[in-house]
């Protein structure tokens, strides 16, 4: 095989890790609360700025800055549900999408107001690992590993813990669980905080690979939603697989054509798949 093509495939595999991590929290919220946070990647941006300021500006050690970012975005997630989703829960589903869309505008512009439109780099550069003849980005490798661990952890939490079981139960049947004494509100708030925390985790890994800027969500947002839907709503494993498929299309497409064109292919595939298998590729 062509060495550059091989590099594209490996690169796609690692990009898949990043996308899977991004899709993880969104998918959880999507599946449990049945709400699309269209501002999800903007929350990731908030986490990236948190890490940036704490680490690059105030000199807080990187792992500590990461923990802080996860906490900050988890609280933000809680606030999103409490302040924005809760008042519109009874409305048509599209209103919830729109309310978080308003938040998207707000977060992007507020970040522009506070930090300007400069691209900010955290200044950590992990040297690439040489694997035979190809270079593998260490930052992406770390992101890939954390995405796997994060997904595994979330899976175990949902399957094994009491709270996780309650979350899955609510997602199955909203009305009956309420009658059986499970507090829907508490579960929704918990889910939102976990979803936010996962966005914070994604932020810590993205900040190692990309510059922080207020509009980073425009490049990652749409593809993340498409991945969640492709994998089947709330289907963690499906979302994971969809992330890797999309990443390969983008990476290999970028090798043969151009990066924008490969995204066009990915979005076209999404449109076709929604018509062919609206319930997601991996559902039975």
């Amino acid at each position, binding site marked *: 095989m062509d060495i550059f093509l091989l590099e594209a495939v490996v690169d796609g595999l690692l990009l898949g890790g990043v996308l899977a991590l991004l899709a993880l929290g969104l998918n959880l919220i999507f599946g449990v609360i049945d709400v699309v946070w269209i501002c999800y990647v903007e929350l990731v941006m908030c986490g990236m700025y948190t890490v940036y300021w704490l680490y690059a500006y105030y000199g807080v050690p990187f792992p500590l800055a990461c923990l802080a970012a996860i906490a900050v975005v988890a609280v933000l997630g809680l606030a999103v549900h409490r302040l924005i989703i809760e008042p519109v829960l009874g409305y048509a589903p599209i209103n919830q999408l729109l309310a978080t869309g308003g938040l998207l505008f707000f977060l*992007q512009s507020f970040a522009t107001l506070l930090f300007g439109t400069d691209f900010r780099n955290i200044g950590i550069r992990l040297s690439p690992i040489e694997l035979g003849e190809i270079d593998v980005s260490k930052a992406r490798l770390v992101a890939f590993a954390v995405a796997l661990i994060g997904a595994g952890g979330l899976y175990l939490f949902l399957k094994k813990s009491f709270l996780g079981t309650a979350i899955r139960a609510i997602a199955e049947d909203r009305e009956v669980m309420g009658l059986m004494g499970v507090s829907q509100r508490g579960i929704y708030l918990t889910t939102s905080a976990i979803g936010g925390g996962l966005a914070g985790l994604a932020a810590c890994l993205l900040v190692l690979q990309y510059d922080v800027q207020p509009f980073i969500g425009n490049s990652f947002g749409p593809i993340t939603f498409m991945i969640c839907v492709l994998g089947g709503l709330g289907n963690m494993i499906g979302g994971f697989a969809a992330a890797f498929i999309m990443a390969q299309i983008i990476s290999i497409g970028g090798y043969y054509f151009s990066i924008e064109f490969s995204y066009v292919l990915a979005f076209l595939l999404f449109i076709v798949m929604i018509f062919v298998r609206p319930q997601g590729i991996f559902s039975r």
Partner: protein
Amino acid sequence: MTAAARLGGAAGLIALVIVPFVASQYVLHIAIQILIWGFTYTAWSLMGRFGLTSFGHGAFLGIGAYVPALLWNFYGVTPWLGIPVAMAAAVVMALLIGYPSFRLRVVGHYFALVTLALSQVVLLSLVAGREVTGGSLGMTIKVVHSWYALQFGQKSVFYGVALVVWLVGLVIWWRIDVGIGRVALEAISEDEIAAASSGINVMREKLRVTVISAALTALGGSLLTQYIQYVNPEVVSGVAVSLQIVFAAIAGGMGTLLGPTVGALFTIVLNESLRVLFGTHFIGAANTIYGILLILFIIFMPQGIVGLIEGMSARAARGADEAADAAATR
């Protein structure tokens, strides 16, 4: 239509015709933008008010903006031909997305995401075709002030063109509103299966508004380019502009004739005044406030500005009636 509404409409129309004779160039510039965007938002609301919430109108707007501009720049084809071509292209695209969506009942946020993907496809294609379109840097159209090129040295002429197009948009909205199609579409958005079983051709009604909405949105995009004489993919296509369309229409009130235009008026005037107020020191301040207002609108006033005013005046009228009844029975 009541006599009062008719009188108000006539007075408003006369005022709009007088505007170019009395207003400054700056006010005229703002007014033209309000008319073009008001027209575009009205076009979106043709679908939006029946529960077909499209997040992909940036796709149609982008086609409308780029097709005539490219035909003019590269082949010297007049926009009088270029714009119909763009509208036809938007219609084809609307059918390609609309038909399977309606057939397979892709609704709610799935429909929003499918249309969002469509607008990304158009945006990224425009960026990817940078050798022709100029990519993210955008493209200036060759300036020739003439009717043939649909470019005018004087703002007042363009104002006239925009005013006529906007009025045509309102007439189309009104024709659909009084037609039997509206009843059918309202029934469909309430309960699609019940509507189908009572003999409504769900597919045909939905496709009809979708096609009209797409074609008019493309026309709005064309006008915008003809006026500004510059196109940029981020400005006319993609997620940001698609959301902007949805929000302005909802802020104004999408279930009423003038709601989307009021949305355009509201958002553009707000943006301009915040820009004047804060200047360039605080880039983003205007949109920060805009974002907060949007969230508040969705939570507290989902029927929009015009919807709220109508509701209030209806309540006031009912109150007056009750007072009159009480007085009569006394």
